[in-house]
């Protein structure tokens, strides 16, 4: 009973602390909340952008953590991601713009171009950073004889989420 309760508390506290790390990205959002509220397409796109970079962070981590004999060629992984990434970006930008138009947001070409370029730039930057981060972390974990499968994905998805939200906040202040 005590073991079960201890396990329950450990799992709950760990889950709470892991979720709390995301608050770092949330601070950036809160700082620009008034400004982002009027940038309707960007507001609508935020959950999609976070999901996208989180998914790719997990995919990259899963591949990098493969045992050496099963490890795929990371260049091939990068190319596979690149082939789908453009399509995902267009879907996110397109649907966000359409839904914003439904809400009465006036879409001018200059804004749309900035929006598309920002989404493409930020997603590529975060995904590329995940390759670097995963490489560094995987090396560090191997040196300390830790199992990368246990730690890489939670760390990299959290970092990807925070990075994307902070980029959005920065863009609201500087670009839009």
């Amino acid at each position: 009973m005590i073991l079960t309760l201890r396990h329950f508390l450990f799992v709950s506290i760990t889950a709470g602390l892991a979720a709390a790390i995301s608050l770092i990205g949330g601070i950036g959002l809160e700082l620009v909340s008034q400004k982002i509220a009027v940038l309707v397409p960007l507001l609508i796109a935020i959950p999609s952008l976070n999901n996208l970079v989180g998914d790719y962070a997990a995919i990259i981590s899963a591949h990098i953590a493969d045992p050496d004999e099963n490890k795929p060629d990371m260049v091939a992984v990068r190319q596979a991601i690149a082939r789908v990434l453009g399509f995902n970006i267009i879907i996110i930008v397109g649907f966000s713009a359409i839904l914003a138009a439904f809400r009465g947001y006036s879409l001018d070409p200059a804004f749309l171009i900035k929006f598309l370029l920002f989404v493409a730039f930020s997603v590529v930057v975060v995904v590329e950073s995940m390759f670097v981060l995963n490489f560094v972390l995987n090396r560090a974990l191997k040196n300390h004889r830790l199992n990368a499968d246990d730690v890489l994905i939670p760390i990299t998805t959290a970092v990807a989420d925070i990075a994307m939200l902070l980029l959005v906040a920065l863009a609201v202040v500087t670009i839009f």
Partner: protein
Amino acid sequence: MGQGISLVGAIAAGYLLELTKVELIGVMGVFMLLPGVFELGGAVAGAFGAKLNHIYEKHPDIARRVYFPQMIYSLCIAVVASVILGLIGGVAAMLIFGGDAVLILKIAMLSVALSSLAGLPIVGWSTIRAIKAGLDADNIIGPVETSLFDALTVLSVFISIGLLA
């Protein structure tokens, strides 16, 4: 296909965010709290789905008996974890933005409870449907729970603000 499901849900969540933004912005600290609540709901639901899948794989005869206890267990984890999240979020909101720490704590707890109460049964049902269809539930549940919980989270935060603020 999994990513497609995930994107559709996330876009829906974004639209709900636009619909509810006035109420969300009205409470200092809620925008900061949102990513944490997104993360927590999805993590608990994902773990529940994965656990259910693995129990069904190894012990299909007892799986039916453990379904509800596992769901309740996951719900309890979500609630306790939301206290941790709410405490940290509340203190951060108070120190950085001058927000109401207790209100942020209450919103975190109520919104995670609401989204988990609504979402966990759906994730459980989807897992079992996937298993019975002969699919690998581990591949299905991830996109389902992220897309579902993104939208549920926005709704539950909105409802929590309406009830508490």
